[in-house]
């Protein structure tokens, strides 16, 4: 790594810390304004007044909210994200369990969606107004407009319940669920490392459908934006000049137009990835897979403040890191960006 790139990285650290602090403050403030009573949410309606008072005290809810925030920040600084009120487990343990599942799903979806989306966008610009172009437009429209929740249920019904082509829900079948030592939390990696061929194949079979469903969203997004960016380049003078000098359409597209939008393409990929990380909740729900999106959503319904804050901070940190790395990649790859 050059000194220049290291300098760029270091410059992002204070910004990242400031963003996380602001995120924590806003999340904490919004949760404090919420009409939901976390103590009542936890103990239910029948509990006695003395239990209610005790639980409020144990949760620290009887202190003014600046004091609650101060306590929370002090704990976070020491690496303690607290205990989830809705799972009864340390938030850190919960996140270590659910976040790798989301990364696995979102990364594979991005790879499938990214490769197919970029290919489709290039092909549609290479053969405008043809079949591929029409197909790309339909795909990008469908990927952006069909709800993944509905698509997931239909896919489960057809490919799992009727055709039996894929496995059902969860990350592994029950026969393998407790034989794999989940050390890293990434089921493919752990199954492969443990030499469990059957478990690896089973994990892949469980991943195909949710990955394809989530990739359909990525595919639609990437195809639409990259195609539009390439079409925007098509009318520029350097393209006319290259064509006038005798370069073929494919060569112009790949050697001249595509490099000019690489910064934009990197940004699109990064934004899509962050959306997938956060937005996999519906796919996780339909396919009964653990994940950060579902963890956060359930925590929100339960007014589970430690879980909400822990998950929000983690997702926020991911956004900041991915954005920072994307900025760096764009600067390093495109000399026009200062």
């Amino acid at each position: 790594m050059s000194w220049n790139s290291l300098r760029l990285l270091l410059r992002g650290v204070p910004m990242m810390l400031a963003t996380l602090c602001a995120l924590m403050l806003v999340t904490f403030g919004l949760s404090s304004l919420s009409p939901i009573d976390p103590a009542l949410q936890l103990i239910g309606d029948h509990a006695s007044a003395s239990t209610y008072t005790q639980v409020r005290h144990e949760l620290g809810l009887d202190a003014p909210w600046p004091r609650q925030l101060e306590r929370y920040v002090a704990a976070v600084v020491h690496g303690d994200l607290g205990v989830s009120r809705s799972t009864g487990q340390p938030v850190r343990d919960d996140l270590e369990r659910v976040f790798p599942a989301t990364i696995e799903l979102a990364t594979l979806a991005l790879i499938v969606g990214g490769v197919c989306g970029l290919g489709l966008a290039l092909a549609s610009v290479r053969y405008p107004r043809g079949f591929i172009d029409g197909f790309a437009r339909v795909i990008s429209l469908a990927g952006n407009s069909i709800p993944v929740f509905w698509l997931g249920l239909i896919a489960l019904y057809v490919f799992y319940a009727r055709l039996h082509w894929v496995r059902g829900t969860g990350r592994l079948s029950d026969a393998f669920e407790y034989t794999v030592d989940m050390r890293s939390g990434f089921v493919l990696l752990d199954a492969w490392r443990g030499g469990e061929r059957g478990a690896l194949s089973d994990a892949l079979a469980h991943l195909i459908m949710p990955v394809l469903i989530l990739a359909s969203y990525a595919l639609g997004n990437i195809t639409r934006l990259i195609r539009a960016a390439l079409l925007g380049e098509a009318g520029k003078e350097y393209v006319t000049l290259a064509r006038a000098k005798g370069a073929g359409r494919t060569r112009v597209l790949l050697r001249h137009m595509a490099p000019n939008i690489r910064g934009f393409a990197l940004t699109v990929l990064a934004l899509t990835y962050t959306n997938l990380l956060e937005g996999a909740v519906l796919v996780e729900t339909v396919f009964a897979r653990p994940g950060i999106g579902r963890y956060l959503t359930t925590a929100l319904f339960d007014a589970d403040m430690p879980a909400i804050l822990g998950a929000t901070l983690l997702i926020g940190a991911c956004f900041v890191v991915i954005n920072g790395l994307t900025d760096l990649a764009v600067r390093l790859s495109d000399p026009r960006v200062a």
Partner: protein
Amino acid sequence: MSRPTRSLRAGPLAAGLMVVATALLVGCTRSVNPPDVFVTAQSLDDLVSLDPAEGFELSSLQTFTSVYQRLVQPDRDDPARLDPSLAARWTAGDRMLTFDLREDAVFSSGNPVRPEDVIYSLSRAVKLNRAPAFILNQLGWTSTNVDASLVKVDDHRVEIHWTAELGTAVVLNILTSPIASIVDEQVVAAHRQESDEGNRWLRSHSAGSGPFKIRRYVPREALVLDANRSSPAGAPRLDTLILKNVPDAGTRRLLVEVGDADLARDLGPDQIAALATSRAVKVLEFPSATIHYLLFNTANPGNPALANPALWEAARWLIDYRGIAEKLLRGQFIVHQAFLAQGFPGALDDTPYHLDVARARRILARAGLAAGVRIRLSVFNQPPYADIAQSLQATFAQGGIALDIVPAEASEVYSQVRARSEEAVWLYWIPDYFDAHSTAGAFAFNPEDGTKTLAWRAGWQIPGLNALTRAAALEPDPETRLSKYREIQAQVQRSSPYVIALQARTGIAVRSEVNGYFQGVDADMAYYDRVSK
């Protein structure tokens, strides 16, 4: 120059082919659950704790029946009858019970069940003071006096004393509730952290003597139970029971249809209807003790009409009971108009009220309320409450009562009810233990000692009913006791700020080869020990 072009063109195609090929290769064989492993698809999102002194959610209550035993438990076929469980027999005295423990009873750890375990379990539950502690508090037990109320007589006998005005029958039934589960003191004490009495450990582990023991609990994913072959309740027929968290009802239906789950819970009317014609799946229906009712807050000074008995009476004729139960909610409920659910001893089964707008208008006119009444109705912001509220709004409007629906999150609604700031609210009630007093003590008891019962929340002053409810709780003769509860129900049904309307039914889908699953009327009565397939 042509190489990258070819590779880029081939990229998506190759990727697509790879995915389809992988799908076909790895997905062409279906997984089959072994015959000794039973998988249920249900929502475990509600599960907070598997410690019987803390867990008070449906999923944990149902699990406690499989994992723990109490001194006495309701007979599963006739819940009105008490069966010995960890106690072989008992004798009653003046506000005391002496239990003889089964001499051969052991926990899943192999430790014998001792009087010390009984004392520790009950005392621990009171001192931890978690959500269900109020059930044991009803005996007059507090963290300061509970130890003196539990006495070891000898190595196999334990005495239980109480100070509250309750008869033996009520106390025995209170001891059947999940919070009275007996835990293995030696195991729990070994996992004590600071002063938590093993609570953190027991949230995800077990130390009981029930037919199953917890092998592994992964929050919001799965709860895996193994057979406890040494259980005093008898060894279960299954080796392993997996309760799998499947949050979406549509997916639960597909899992049981395909055979990856043997049982699916929490299905909606759409899923039940879709499975009704399946040959591979049978739908079992069990009555549930959950009662749905409308409550008027008579203590709200902003709307004096709420305290007018004529409004309560008119409201009874302004609900389309049958339309809600049979059409709107399609078989998930039955019409039920008394506070004791069908299936509880002494429950009134008659349904004297139906939708009669003309009669309601006459009642309101006689009471001088014909000019129109406006009421804020608080409801949970989840199905089926919004549908029920809209039906009420429509029929009450015909009678001249304008209902303003205020949907809110459940804990927000509970906050309003506890603070008595709402005007009217649609709520549900689940009894805490299998005894009429659990419900009568809420609906028809508003003592002046500061106990905030449901009647207190409705602002309903009822000295006469208080005496009757107290007498019923103390009545030693079973038949006389039941007749007293029938009388209390009739009074509440006739005139009270509650309009009791519906009783829930539970629909469960099981594979056709599954036998022996049974579910009782109360929340914790889910029995897996006789299940086979």
